[in-house]
């Protein structure tokens, strides 16, 4: 079923909403994107926008490979507009116990045709000379890339608009309307907008938007924080992260360090981070002191040469977290309602996958990627039909 003449409302102009709007408008749909603030101003704009398959998600590996290819195609299509750079990613190892874990990841990625490898500490310094801190070893994924998160959202949205999509920014969706068993539009403070289908790409706001329709989805907000130094000369070449660790299990910690094109060093280390209270996404707090302390300690341990560098700023946004760390993408509740949320802090890479899944679902065809890891029905509550 083609999308011609269908009017589809996409709620949310983050990277997922922008990619989805582009996918839909290119398939002939009339698309309206509604955004509560400026496009990309929620967690997309706070992202470090690393596009990496490495140590990411075993079950999603085929989808992630497809996503990295799509990003590379976009880079060509948009003439480098969002500053795609294939800088590679290092995951440092602190504990002997983590070496077998790292070797397992490398093996499964290589089996999928990727080029991850194991590095000694000396080899790490050939790639990242400033990383002189005491690490045991590392893994290396040379094809991982960075994009400019702001320009990525802007470029995809601009392309969607050039193809006919309409953007209505600074307009919150107050409700999704239904007629019978189908959605029929959305309401904002200013307008009622009729729609044949509604795609909710509203990140941490997504679950609240569909709850009144009797759709209960396990998406909760989680505080995402980052720090930035003043601009430095070129110091860090790629992305530096912590390896997946057996120390402390799945919550064992998270580090990402990289240098922006403007020279600022962006870094975060989250050693303890749970979910935030419901509604936390509506107000933006300051960074936690514990977070500041842990992030600086990790940065200076790895890059002791940065000691006297000034910190310039910090930011906080809220990720949309699901129980299994995967997106919820596909039809939910009443006919014509689609979910595209649950970034779990790694939405940038996955945005083209989610867009493809939503477009295929709307066209009622099988798409280029297998949607099953993101099937909303995997959570029993998602099966409830609307009241």
């Amino acid at each position, binding site marked *: 079923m083609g999308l011609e003449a269908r009017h589809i409302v996409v709620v949310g*102009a983050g990277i997922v909403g922008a990619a989805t709007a582009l996918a839909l408008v290119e398939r002939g749909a009339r698309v309206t994107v509604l*955004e509560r*603030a*400026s*496009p*990309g*101003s929620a967690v997309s*704009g706070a992202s470090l926008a690393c596009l990496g398959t490495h140590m990411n998600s075993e079950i999603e590996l085929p989808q992630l490979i497809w996503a990295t290819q799509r990003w590379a195609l976009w880079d060509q299509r948009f003439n480098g507009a969002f500053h795609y750079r294939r800088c590679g990613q290092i995951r440092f190892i602190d504990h002997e116990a983590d070496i077998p874990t790292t070797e397992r990841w490398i093996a499964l990625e290589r089996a999928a045709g990727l080029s991850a490898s194991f590095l000694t500490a000396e080899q790490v310094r050939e790639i990242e000379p400033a990383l002189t801190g005491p690490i045991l070893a590392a893994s290396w994924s040379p094809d991982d890339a960075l994009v400019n998160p*702001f*320009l990525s959202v*802007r470029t995809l*949205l*601009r392309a969607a608009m050039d193809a006919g999509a309409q*953007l209505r*920014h*600074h307009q919150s969706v107050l409700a999704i309307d239904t007629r019978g068993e189908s959605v029929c539009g959305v309401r904002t403070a200013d307008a009622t907008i009729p729609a044949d289908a509604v795609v909710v790409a509203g990140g941490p706001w997504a679950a609240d938007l569909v709850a009144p329709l009797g759709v209960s989805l396990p998406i909760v907000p989680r505080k995402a924080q980052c720090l930035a*130094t*003043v*601009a430095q000369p070129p110091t860090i070449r790629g992305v530096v992260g912590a390896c997946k660790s057996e120390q402390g299990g799945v919550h064992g910690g998270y580090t990402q360090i990289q240098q922006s094109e*403007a020279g*600022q060093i962006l870094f975060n280390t989250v050693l303890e981070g749970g979910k935030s209270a419901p509604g936390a996404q509506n*107000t*933006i*707090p*300051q*960074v*936690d*002191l*514990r977070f*500041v*302390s842990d992030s*600086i*300690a990790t*940065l*200076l341990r790895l890059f002791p040469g*940065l*000691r*006297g*560098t*000034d*910190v*310039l*700023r*910090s*930011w906080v946004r809220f990720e949309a977290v699901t129980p299994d760390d995967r997106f919820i993408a596909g039809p939910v509740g009443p006919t014509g309602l689609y979910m595209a949320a649950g970034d779990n802090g790694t939405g940038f890479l996955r945005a083209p996958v989610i867009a493809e899944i939503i477009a295929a679902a709307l066209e009622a065809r099988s798409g280029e990627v297998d949607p099953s890891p993101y099937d909303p029905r995997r959570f029993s509550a998602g099966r409830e039909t609307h009241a």
Partner: protein
Amino acid sequence: MTGRSAEIVDSEICVVGGGPAGLSAALAARRAGAQVVLLDLFDRPGGQYFMQPPHPVSGLAAAQVGQGRALIGKVRDSGVVIRSGVEVFGADGAGTLLARQGERALVVRAKALVLATGAHERTSPFPGWTLPGVMNPGAAQRLVKMHGITPGKRVVLAGCGPFLLVVAAQLHHAGCEVVRVVEASPSPLRLAATLLRFPSRWAEAAGLLRAVAPLWSRFRFGRVVAEAMGEGHVNRVRFAFLDGEGRLGADDPETIDDIDALLVGYGFRPSVEIATLLGCSLRHDWNAGGHHVAIDEASGATSVPGVFAAGEITGVAGAYPALAGGARAGAAAARFVGRPAGHSPPSYAGRADRFAKALRRAFRVPYAALGQLPDAETLLCRCEEVRATDVAAALQDGGCDAHGVKMWTRAGMGLCQGRICGFGLSVYAAQRAGLDPASFGANAARFPARPAPLDILAEATAAAIAAPQGNLADESRGGLSGSASRD
């Protein structure tokens, strides 16, 4: 990190800012019996108004310097601990401040805070504003008063407000040739009418008028600086007339040549960074300088229990309202920590507030014209080299607020943390996209409120985490999450 640890300072009350409001607050709180520490950014307390030069001062500034010296003396004698050269960069919950004094990290824990962090000069971009030799009048005043350095030999002043007169008089006294004083307000009549209604200010006004009398022929009204020109340094300036609505009108045919300094100032914006870190509610009102801290007028209480505010951060009004507001906030903070003070507002308090409001009406900043001044290539954000045309494109694409513009152009992401470009961006957006400044917003201050080295931040945060929580009333504790910014 370095083996050093932060110094912990405990005090019942901590006052941030050593200008008129902060000094007055500290004195009031101390006189009520509270233990008070005052943190000030500069080498000597006094702020801009009571600035204390290291050398003797004559002329117009002498009385003001003397008045400040007397107040600082009283504050010291009362037992307030004044710590100079302290940069506050963070806050945890309402009771703990993170700071540095030189290379030492400082953690201050108090039962109540009085914020008196003053105001910044507003910088408004126009073609040529980034040329060397173009500066704010307040910066020039500090050069002259503190260091005896004049900003140039032949100087043009332009902008809006009585501060321009003060600086013109001081530069003239310091030996500069003040070639032009260009005031945006249509005529001096409204100022005269305002002054007539406040006999208490006649002596002060007469002193100022006497000081600028030799310059009277150099004054021009109802116009703004349209362009600064020069090869590597400003040496030429041209102006434009304003129409009746405060928009740009025809070009003024006059250009001034052979100048070596151009001082342009359109007033001040409240320095609300620390208040923002603490989560104090802000309001926007151009008459108060833009975004300012919302307070209960009777006590200076902000929206955060235990945090009080006074002076320019509660709305730019000048030194006398700041002194009165400081006294109110200091007494209220003392009451908050259980030191009831018999505070009686200074006799001039009401009159000073009315005078400040009347002055604001007399000097109308031409916001519309300021937003029209940049051409496509004019830098709106100097740190990140963002041109007006870049900002216009972002506004066009839906980045229709301060944060959207910042994301899409990097305006405000640089070293000044948005302090310099914030005002110009909001007046430009108002003109370009019809966005009112309140909805355009401002990029809220984020930790650290001032750039600070990694190792000092590490020491301060470690100490703040290890030390028992700030001592404020229970309901105001933010906990370690510091989830303070409820804006």
